[in-house]
């Protein structure tokens, strides 16, 4: 621009306006630029916001879907839980129904002996109501023995099986099963009674054979020639064996029927032993055996059942004689084991009992192989009877035996007694 001094004032005023305008324009431009920048910024921010909004919307949508899904799965879960609960309840009810309907009496106690389950059969068998039994101690609800220690349930023929309930190696309770064995008992009793009856019936003809043979052998019906006598002897002896067998069967049936009565009375044990020995003396002599009898001095009158003590001694002694070869030795010894018990010891130098059969020797009808091979007869009932008698009398029986040469067997019997010498 060309500046003119004349016009300086005007120019100067104009210039001032222009200058101001220029400044304004400049400022306007600056503002415009700034605005443009701000607009651009705003546009960018808006764009960003739009992006964010879009993203948010996506997330929101996703969340909504998830929420819906969650709701659905919750509902399903709820339903499943309900179904499962229902199933569990049904199966629990079923299991409970099974437990309660078991034909045998069932009692379940927790670790403190508190009854937690009692089934219908147990209620019936034991004569108690579940309401009176549940949550109570077994011992206060069920009396198995009375004050005298007698087993009450025994009258009812109930067998009881007790087993622990074990969970992860720890006992968490007890199960008791009560089984009504009346039927089994009756069948068993009928069987035993049959044997008893049959054996009694057998005794009559056995007596007839005995007595007629005896009279014939005695010459009551005239003299017999040697052959007749020999044959008749055989008849008589065989019949005696039959009598012994029948007697043994009767003893067994009476032991099993529980009709075996123990009737203690003052008994001279030494005299009784001597009688038993006398009865078998001829057998001992025939086999040329060395026999000795020893007894403690203080053995004399004792409170015991003489009939049973006799059976015990007879059986063991006759076994010793039977199962010891000729020229063997037998010893019978009676001593006081302690204040309450007498000990009978019968030892022999016989065949012995094979090691692998020693656990069976007290079994019914059992005879060891080594004596079955020998020419000896026996029923296999003797020691079974002896053991039953001894145990019913509250005593004990055991033995030591070896089949090694000449070792033989020694039987020990301990019987309780009341010494009445004092």
């Amino acid at each position, binding site marked *: 621009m060309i500046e003119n001094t004349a016009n300086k004032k005007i120019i100067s005023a104009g210039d001032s306006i222009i200058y101001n305008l220029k400044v304004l324009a400049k400022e306007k431009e600056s503002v415009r630029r700034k605005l443009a920048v701000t607009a651009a910024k705003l546009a960018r921010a808006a764009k960003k916001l739009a992006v964010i909004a879009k993203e948010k919307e996506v997330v929101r949508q996703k969340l909504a879907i998830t929420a819906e899904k969650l709701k659905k799965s919750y509902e399903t879960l709820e339903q499943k839980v309900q179904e499962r609960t229902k199933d569990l309840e049904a199966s629990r009810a079923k299991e409970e129904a099974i437990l309660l309907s078991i034909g045998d009496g069932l009692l379940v106690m927790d670790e403190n002996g508190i009854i937690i389950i009692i089934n219908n059969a147990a209620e019936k068998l034991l004569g108690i109501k579940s309401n009176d039994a549940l949550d109570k101690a077994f011992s206060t609800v069920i009396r198995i023995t009375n004050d005298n220690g007698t087993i009450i349930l025994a009258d009812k023929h109930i067998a009881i099986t007790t087993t622990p309930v074990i969970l992860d190696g720890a006992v968490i309770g007890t199960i008791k099963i009560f089984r009504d064995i009346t039927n089994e008992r009756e069948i068993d009793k009928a069987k035993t009674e049959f044997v008893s009856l049959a054996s*009694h019936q057998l*005794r*009559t003809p*056995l*007596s*007839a054979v*005995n*007595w*007629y043979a*005896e*009279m014939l052998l*005695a010459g*009551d019906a005239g003299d017999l020639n040697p052959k007749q006598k020999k044959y008749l002897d055989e008849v008589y002896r065989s019949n005696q064996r039959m*009598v012994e067998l*029948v*007697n043994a069967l009767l003893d067994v049936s009476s032991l099993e029927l529980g*009709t075996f*009565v123990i*009737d203690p009375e003052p008994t001279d044990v030494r005299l009784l032993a001597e009688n038993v020995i006398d009865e078998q003396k001829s057998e001992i002599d025939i086999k040329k055996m060395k026999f000795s009898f020893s007894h403690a001095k203080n053995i004399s009158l004792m409170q015991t059942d003489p009939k049973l003590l006799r059976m015990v001694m007879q059986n063991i002694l006759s076994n010793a004689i039977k199962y010891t070869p000729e020229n063997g030795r037998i010893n019978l010894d009676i001593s006081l084991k302690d204040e309450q018990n007498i000990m009978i010891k019968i030892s022999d130098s016989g065949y012995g009992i094979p090691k692998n059969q020693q656990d069976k020797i007290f079994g019914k009808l059992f005879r060891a192989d080594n004596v079955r091979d020998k020419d000896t007869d026996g029923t296999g009932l003797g020691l079974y009877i002896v053991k039953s008698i001894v145990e019913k009398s509250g005593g004990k029986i055991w033995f030591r035996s070896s089949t090694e040469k000449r070792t033989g067997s020694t039987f020990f019997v301990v019987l309780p007694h009341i010494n009445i010498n004092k």
Partner: protein
Amino acid sequence: MKTTKNIAEKRTVLVIEDDKPLLEAINAKLEKSGFGVIAARSVEQAFHGKLAKNSDGEVTIKSIEQALDYLESLEKIDAIWLDHHLIGKEDGLDFVKKFKANGGRWSKIPVFVVSNAASPNTVKSYGEFGVSKYYVKSDHRLDEIVSDIVASL
């Protein structure tokens, strides 16, 4: 038929046993040993029997009244051989009860129970009536019981 008088002349045993072969054997052994025998197979017979000796030489008694009359009229019975199981409803124990109930001399006549039944309760019951001679039939010889009877007289 043997008369009462004849029987009374020797020692007489009243034998009550239901099994015929056994009764015959006992009868034979006792007679062989010098006893007179009166036999019965039931309590009823023992007490009420008519005195009649059959072909086997037994005196049989048929009814209780007759036997009681018979026993009362009998001058002498020295011993009684008694089985437990007998024909009819009554057993040896019933006989002993009735017999002992008569008291007097009868309560002193020894009774020998010879039976197959040997339950401790039965034996005990006899004992309560004063009968202590108890034999299990198949476990004893005739001569053994007969000599016990002889020893008791």
